[in-house]
């Protein structure tokens, strides 16, 4: 019962802050709303016994991506006055897209035959992750790494070119 309560608490946090992300007109508030959504999802992982995934979620999404997003937002010129627009078209389109995604997810959730597990002592998952990455999924794993590397080099190249222009 207690764990159920806590589960609903975290689920509420995720959904509530997701609503803030969607409705707030202040970009920075959206960013911080996303923080709590991600943390809520992270708690869901913990309930599922996916400890490695949980920590990765925090490191990658909170420590990496969200920080970068906020960085970009804060460095953008006069962000305070750039209120997000709310014309009628956008909510309608967004609602449509959201409904589509929701429907597809529901379809998938109901159609899939899930392994039913009793939540109990969570088993360590890290080593199985490691094995899987370096054996069965080696190619996708390496492919993703190379892709990220290329992206990084591209970013470095773009900034450098800009700097040279400035120097001239």
């Amino acid at each position, binding site marked *: 019962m*207690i764990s159920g309560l806590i589960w609903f608490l975290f689920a509420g946090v995720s959904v509530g802050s997701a609503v803030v992300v969607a409705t707030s007109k202040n970009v*920075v508030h959206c960013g911080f709303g996303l*923080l709590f959504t991600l943390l809520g999802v992270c708690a869901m992982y913990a309930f599922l016994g996916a400890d490695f995934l949980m*920590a990765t979620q925090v*490191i990658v999404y909170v*420590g990496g991506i969200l*920080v970068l997003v906020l960085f970009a937002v*804060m460095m953008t010129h006069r962000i305070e006055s750039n209120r997000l627009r709310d014309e009628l078209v956008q909510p309608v389109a967004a609602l449509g897209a959201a409904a589509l995604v929701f429907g597809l997810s529901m379809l998938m959730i109901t159609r899939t035959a899930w392994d039913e597990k009793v939540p109990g002592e969570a088993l360590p*998952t890290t080593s199985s992750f490691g094995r899987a990455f370096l054996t069965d999924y080696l190619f996708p794993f390496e492919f993703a790494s190379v892709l990220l590397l290329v992206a990084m080099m591209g970013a470095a190249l773009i900034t450098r070119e800009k700097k040279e222009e400035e120097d001239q």
Partner: protein
Amino acid sequence: MHETLSNLPLLSGLPAQVLVVLAMVSAGGIILGCIAVGGMFFIWSERKVAGYIQSRYGPMYVGGWHGVLQSLADGVKLLLKEDIWPEKADKPLWRMAPLLVFLGAFLSFVVLPFGPNFVGANLDIGLFYVMATSSLVVMGVISAGWGSNNKWALYGALRGAAQVISYEIPLGLALLPVVMSTGSLNLGTIIQAQAGWIHNWHLLNPLFFVSFWIYVISSLAEVNRVPFDLPETESELVSGYHTEYTGMKFAFFFLGEYADMFVVSAIGVTVFLGGWYSGIPALDVPALFPLIFILKSFFLVFVQIWLRWTLPRLRVDQLMYVCWKVFIPIALANLLLYGVIRTVLS
């Protein structure tokens, strides 16, 4: 822990679920108490060490012996202070920031292994978990800098965030060889790999020795200590991201900072300095484990304090240079070398 509670005569009649809640609350309370008392102790010792280094006394009056209760008095003072906030602050973010910073430190404390059976949560991913919680501190710093609506605070926050996410990389890379060696991220397992005489400590392995120094230096940057105290830089950014905070909100930043100092030191002790083992098998009795662990961590905290009162600080570009062009290549080479050696030897 709730099983332990149910064995107590007073509580034996209570339903299990109440006991679980009780256990959670008391565990949180114990950690909170540890952070508060530990933090106050570190603040006091920082002032005493600084005083000693600078040929002065530091606090001498409150609490009788050498001002031991000075931090407590300061805490009370901060509690009673008026809570001033900037009129144009972004209130939600501004209020949230000290909590996020403190939460980061608090969550890390949960996994610190003071002894084989003396750990809040013996997570399989302990090391990884500690790295993850520091992300919350970054968010707190950003939130403080933005919420204050102050240019200096914003500069401090940007510096802080850039610095912490940069130095997380060499920090993580420095820990990896040890993880490869022990084959586990569990802090307890890493310590158990260093049992026995002192030569089993990871510090005394040449490659791990390199890792250790990278770890120690990067951890200084991670907790914003001199020579990497750029987010605060009193002489440049007035007080950096917490310029606008007063009273208890400021105290939370302060306490969080000192708790973080202890956390990085404790992780350093766990990974490189043999954790709760003394290095002499005869002394390794379970009752002494927490004491040994804490003493070693204090020593690393002392080193941080010592450095703060000795060195000047770097400039922000030099800080980034050191991270990206010195530590990361060395740490990567070290990791590669260890991998090669290990593969060849096995």
